[in-house]
Each structure stands twice: as structure tokens, then as C-alpha cells.
């Protein structure tokens, strides 16, 4: 029963995403993307409840950044993680760039009207090529990189709201379910990316009271890149 209720709410949430897209010049594409995700999500979510899936997902991801803790600082009984290797990237949990990333993520959450801590445990700075959301060492991580920090305020917020949207979907579906959904096909990836980018664009546009033509162009280009893989 719980599973069914959760599934209904997941679908409602995705349709809310779709409704959020209405008014975009590309609203139909966005709406269809959301509908496609919701339809497939209904199948993907049959089975264990989201809460169970979330716990399983967390357990499965423990050790993602296994070992290689660069430095730990004792703070009472707890050890604070300062940086870890994650794939071929380095994630920083403190420092000036991490502080800037955190400020951007906090403003992005404000723009989206949500509490950051509901969806993200740590905001980190990554040396990787792209900002991302993931679960690292059993904690939900939103990572921003140098490219994001170099962008305009609008660009920074769009990057961050984009990743926050992944985090929100992950919270809804459970991380492993969301991961399975994301990699189920290239067209599904395209649907999800179009959905979160469209949402990010609209959220930031509303928050800032508009976007420059240049900023709109960058977002459109991203949507077009993915759009060609969307049937």
C-alpha cells in the first residue's frame, strides 16, 4: 500500500514538473518528456516502497569513494571529511571554492523554494569536468566545478538548480531506482535531462525576473543537444 501511495505521489510530482514547464517556448517537448518519465517510472517503482529503496540505495553506495581520504580532522568524536577521490575527480568538502559552491547551492534552493538539507547532505567543489549530484560515502552530494564558478550568477544558479532537481528526483524514486531509470536508455536520459534543465531555466528566470538572451541561448543549446536523442 505504501508503495502504491508513494508511486502516485512520484507521478504527481513529475506531472508538477511538467506543469512547471508550461509557458516555455518548448513547453510541449518538456511536457512530453515529463509524461514519458512518469509513465516509465510507474513501472520502475512497482515493488519495494521508496523508503525501502532509499535505504537499499544508500547501503549499496557506501564505499563509492572508498578509502583515499586525504585528510581527516578530529572534531570531538566525529571525523570530518576534507576531500576524497571520486573516480578521476577530487571532491573538496571545505576551502574557498567549496564555500562559493555552497553559497550558490543555497541560493539555488531558495530560488526553487525548497530546503537544501532536505535533498543534499554536502555541497562540494569538484575538480571534475561537470557539476553533478550523487551519493558518496552514504551521503547525498551536490558538486559544482570550476566551470560553474566562472559563470554568471544566472548560469551558476541554473547549474545548481539542475543538480538540485536530480537530487529531488532521487529523493522521490530512491537513488538506485533513479539511476536505473537514468540508464535505462539514451532517450530516457534525454527526457530526464530536458526535464531538469527546463525546470532550472524556468526556476531561475522566475527568481531573477528574467534571463539574458545569451543565457537563454546556452540553455537552449543544451536542450537541443539532448533533444536529438529524444524520440
Amino acid at each position: 500500500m505504501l508503495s502504491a501511495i508513494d508511486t502516485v505521489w512520484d507521478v504527481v510530482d513529475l506531472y508538477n514538473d511538467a506543469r512547471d514547464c508550461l509557458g516555455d517556448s518548448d513547453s510541449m517537448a518538456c511536457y512530453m518528456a515529463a509524461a514519458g518519465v512518469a509513465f516509465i517510472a510507474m513501472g520502475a517503482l512497482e515493488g519495494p516502497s521508496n523508503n525501502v529503496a532509499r535505504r537499499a540505495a544508500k547501503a549499496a553506495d557506501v564505499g563509492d569513494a572508498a578509502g583515499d581520504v586525504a585528510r581527516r580532522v578530529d572534531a570531538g568524536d566525529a571525523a570530518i571529511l576534507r576531500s576524497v577521490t571520486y573516480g578521476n575527480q577530487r571532491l573538496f568538502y571545505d576551502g574557498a571554492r567549496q564555500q562559493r559552491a555552497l553559497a550558490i547551492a543555497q541560493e539555488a534552493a531558495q530560488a526553487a523554494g525548497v530546503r537544501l538539507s532536505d535533498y543534499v547532505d554536502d555541497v562540494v567543489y569538484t575538480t571534475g569536468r561537470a557539476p553533478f549530484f550523487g551519493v558518496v560515502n552514504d551521503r547525498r552530494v551536490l558538486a559544482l566545478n570550476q566551470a560553474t564558478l566562472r559563470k554568471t550568477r544566472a548560469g551558476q544558479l541554473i547549474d545548481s538548480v539542475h543538480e538540485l532537481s536530480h537530487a529531488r528526483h532521487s529523493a522521490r524514486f530512491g537513488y538506485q531506482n533513479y539511476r536505473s531509470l537514468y540508464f535505462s536508455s539514451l532517450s530516457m536520459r534525454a527526457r530526464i535531462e530536458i526535464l531538469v534543465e527546463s525546470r532550472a531555466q524556468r526556476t531561475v528566470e522566475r527568481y531573477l525576473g528574467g534571463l539574458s538572451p545569451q543565457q537563454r541561448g546556452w540553455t537552449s543549446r543544451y536542450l537541443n543537444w539532448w533533444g536529438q536523442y529524444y524520440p
Partner: protein
Amino acid sequence: MRATPDELFIQNLEEAWPPGALYYMPKEQALEELRHLTGEDFGYDANAWRQWFRKNSVSRQKGKRGK
């Protein structure tokens, strides 16, 4: 991850993501996806793939996906 589809595959060629990451796929699979997407084969040379995508960005945006 806010990155283009080709970049997602190329990053997996470079093993940018550990197993379990939202964006992880085995590099063999990433290579297969890139071959399928472009009809080209540069093996595991990420720079060569990036160079190809830079040169072919216009046709890519017009929807030419290769074989």
C-alpha cells in the same frame, strides 16, 4: 550532471565516475555507445573523441547521429 551526451560517454571512457555513481557506465559500454552514436572509432582515446565532437558539433546539433 549537466553535460552533453557525448561528454557523458567520454567521461566514462576516462573512468571519471566510480561504479555506483549516477552517471557510471563501464568504459567498454561507453565506447560502444560512442561508436554507435558516431560511426567512428577512436578507441579509448578521450581527446580524439572530444576533438571529433568539436569538429562535428554543427552536424551533431542538426541531428546527424551516424550509424
